[in-house]
């Protein structure tokens, strides 16, 4: 059977799997980003003068620690991590979402920390001098100014997640992995090649879809004064 025939006969299933794949990635990236941004905000308040050593030491510790752990996790082969979670959370969507979410953390956290700490010192100092408290400064000055960098981190993590999500099908996770894995395990059989090819192409379609979404979000959420 050739690729086009296969697609025509299984279009409903393929489209459903593609939508599922996009949703799967979306949820994991959303959860992961919220967690990462929250941690990032918590640990990088960027005091212009380090008078309060206690808080800064504590914050620096958490920051470096969480960066180290999330980076280390990123180097574990995804296949292994999915399987390692099996005894704890079993087969299915839960394991898939937990593991993929873990993979999304590092890039967003790294970019959040980098973006927040790169905010111009003089801007932060004048904010403090005008009577901005720590929280107000963080939310109304640092976060909007760091947002382009953070958003870029989310974008990169989304692209990486699209391919890692495929692996989730070995724990019966959702998405295009099912199609690809079926094809790969039955390589040589008549439908195997069309399945792998279509799975791959559909991953690219999902990636293109997210790229468009990000271009729109960027346009809408980056403040006008700092748009390049």
């Amino acid at each position, binding site marked *: 059977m050739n690729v086009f025939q296969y697609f025509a006969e299984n279009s409903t299933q393929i489209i459903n799997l593609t939508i599922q794949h996009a949703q799967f990635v979306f949820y994991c990236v959303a959860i992961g980003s919220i967690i990462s941004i929250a941690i990032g905000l918590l640990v990088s308040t960027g005091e212009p003068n380090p008078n309060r050593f206690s808080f800064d030491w504590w914050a620096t510790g958490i920051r470096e620690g969480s960066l180290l752990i999330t980076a280390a996790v990123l180097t574990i082969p995804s296949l292994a991590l999915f399987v390692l979670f099996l005894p704890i959370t079993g087969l299915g969507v839960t394991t898939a979402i937990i593991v993929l979410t873990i993979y999304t953390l590092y890039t967003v956290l790294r970019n959040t920390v980098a973006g927040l700490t790169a905010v*111009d010192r003089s801007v932060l100092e*004048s904010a403090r*001098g*005008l009577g*901005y408290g720590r929280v107000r400064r963080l939310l109304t000055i640092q976060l909007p*100014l760091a947002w382009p960098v953070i958003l870029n981190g989310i974008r990169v993590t989304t692209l990486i997640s699209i391919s890692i999500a495929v692996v989730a099908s070995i724990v019966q996770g959702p998405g295009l992995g099912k199609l690809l894995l079926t094809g790969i395990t039955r390589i040589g059989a008549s439908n195997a090649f069309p399945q792998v090819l279509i799975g791959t192409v559909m991953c690219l379609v999902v990636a293109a879809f997210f790229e468009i979404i990000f271009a729109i979000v960027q346009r809408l959420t980056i403040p006008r*004064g700092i748009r390049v």
Partner: protein
Amino acid sequence: MSETENMIVLEAVEKVYPGSTAPAVERLDMTIPKGEIVMLIGPSGCGKTTTLKMVNRLIEPTSGRIILDGEDVTDVNGDLLRRKIGYVIQQGGLFPHFSIADNIGVVPKMLGWDKNKIRERADELLHLVGLEPSTYRDRYPRQLSGGQQQRVGVARALAADPPVMLMDEPFGAIDPITRDRLQDEFLEIQRTVGKTICFVTHDLQEAVKLGDRIAVFATGGRLAQYDDPDTVLTHPADDFVSDFVGGGAAVRRLSLLELSRLELHPVETDVAAVGNQNGTPVAEVDGAGRPVSWRHLPDRDAAGTALVTVPLSGTVYDAVDVMLDGSASLVAVVDDEGLPQGVLHWNDLVAGLKTRERER
């Protein structure tokens, strides 16, 4: 002097940074009267910025008291305190993602002003600092030049009409010509707003030009002298100050002396006075009464001497400048309308300048 006439009082204020043994600012006592500009000056690292930031508690003093308008603010909430004190820094520090109007409105907004009132205030202040509101209010900081950003920084600090302004080298990163203009505008604005201003600089010229008083800091955070500019230049308190003020103090002092404070020589515009024997120069004037050339000069060829003028609002320094520039040994001092008010001779400079009492 009663307590309320002093806006800022520092009592034995000291700062020792954590991890260092020597104080950055050493037991500082300083009193700043209402409505005056005090210039903090001294070599790099002598504690000027530290002193300034202790006034609004951006830096917490290690010991000592800070009294603002009669109220001890050493232990009040720092953020709330800072909303009542204007603060301008060298790099401007404008928020890049806020429009110019929003930048100016940040403190009023925190203080809960009404939206319309904030907008009107922003326009009013843009006007005050010489930026056309309709052109600039909706721009973003990156669309402004450095000098314009600095003006917005000043406007932002003035927004909630704080009685006190702290300025840390506000014109430090600006080219000399623009800086000169900003300084003139700054004095003009101060005439309108009458704030109590603490101003850090490391430019003695700037300190002399803008300051009602100058605080000279020595290395190690010691206040070496706190006096009016004339006294600092002419009577340095110790070797450090005289070294710091350096040679050329006499020349610098010229820029302190306003022509309006001098006893000028009379000048005539009446043709009948030509040939007078009492030494009064006679100028030829145009239709509006403005001097254009000399008709008669005592012991000199009037036709061979250029007539140069300097405004009465200028300083002796300006007068010397135009005399050198025009190779003239005398200069006509004119008022705002350009009418002659008197003359200043080159010889007056060495003979000693006679001043009238200063009216304040």
